[in-house]
């Protein structure tokens, strides 16, 4: 997949009202693959933290018998982190306002994940 294709995949995520930025992260090492972030958001930090949290959460979910993660959502008082893992080991990540339409972001993340593969 080319860089413009990655950008297109993220584009529809960032168009959702309340999304501050979206990025593709390598789940294994927490490195940025592609990003579209608002100014002030540190992409490298988002990637590393999302990757680490995804790994820990994945282990807990496997142990609980609910299988692989399809979508997860960390809600904070001042913002939210929403993530869809792909089959290829890439995480599609969105950073959003606290009152964002989670259902809509989830759909766009799943669609982007389908494009990334």
């Amino acid at each position, binding site marked *: 997949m080319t860089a413009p294709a990655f950008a297109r995949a993220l584009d529809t995520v960032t168009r959702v009202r309340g999304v501050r930025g979206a990025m593709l992260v390598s789940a294994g090492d927490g490195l940025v693959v592609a990003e579209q972030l608002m100014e002030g*958001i540190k992409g490298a*930090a*988002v990637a590393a*933290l*999302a990757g*680490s*949290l995804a790994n*820990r*959460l994945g*282990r*807990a*979910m496997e*142990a*609980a*018998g*609910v*299988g*692989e*993660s*399809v*979508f*997860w*959502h*960390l*809600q*904070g*008082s*001042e*913002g*939210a*982190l929403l993530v869809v893992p792909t089959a290829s080991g890439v995480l599609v990540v969105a*950073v959003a306002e*606290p009152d964002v339409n989670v259902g809509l972001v989830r759909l766009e993340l799943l669609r982007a994940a389908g494009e990334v593969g």
Partner: protein
Amino acid sequence: MSDDVRALSAQLAQDPQSLVFLRLGELLRQRGLLDAAHRVALNGLERHPHLADGHDLYARILADKRDYERAFDEWDMTLRIAPGHVGALKGLAFLYFKIGDLGQAVSHLEAANRAAPDDAGVAQALAMVRGGDAAGAAQGLEAPVAAEPAVASAGPLDEARVFAGLEGAREGLLLLDASGRVLGGALRDSSDTDVTEPVAAYLAGVSQEAARTAKLLGLGAWTGLAAEGRQGHVHLAQPSPESLLLVVRDRSVPMGRLAIIAQRAAQAAQRWLEGQA
């Protein structure tokens, strides 16, 4: 099938819009035919979605089936439609009583007493709860199901009852301390294996990582972590800064509903933690 059930069924078949479904559903419930009662109530509610008595009937059936979470929702809905509905006030009092929240139980009984001062059952339950006679109160509430002996105590919740009265309390709710040690609840996977301890161990790390992520990304204090899995959903919350709550359900439970279940479980856990302090 008894004659009265047959007669009411025939009446309903003749006029599906009729409110006779209320009598038929209640009759089936009283006879313990809960699946049939459930179908009748749901069909009736499809035709009369804003009928308070319909929601009250459905709640009583759910309570009989020990689906207390949904019974709560239905009685809550009943009160939204008809704020002074005595059946719903009594039902909610019963549920609050079951989880040990005597303040809320009394408050709902008082409201029921104001709405129906001649209802001897309400007056009796109120007097008993105020007087600390839990067993008598359960009787007076005319609870849809017999009060379990462990729930009849009016004292503070003990460890085994952190989530008493909540849906899936014995197998889908887990309360941990900050170090991943189990405070209450239990988890079983789809093969019925107890996975409480390994999940608890992994979750301590998740909690710390969630807090770190929220802080470093400027998301404020984290209030919840919800995740969809291929076989089920999980929701994590922090009832207190030193504890972590996990709710696990299969995929049939939507994420939004899971968040509500988690919120109620967190409130129960908070009360329990305060009782331990």
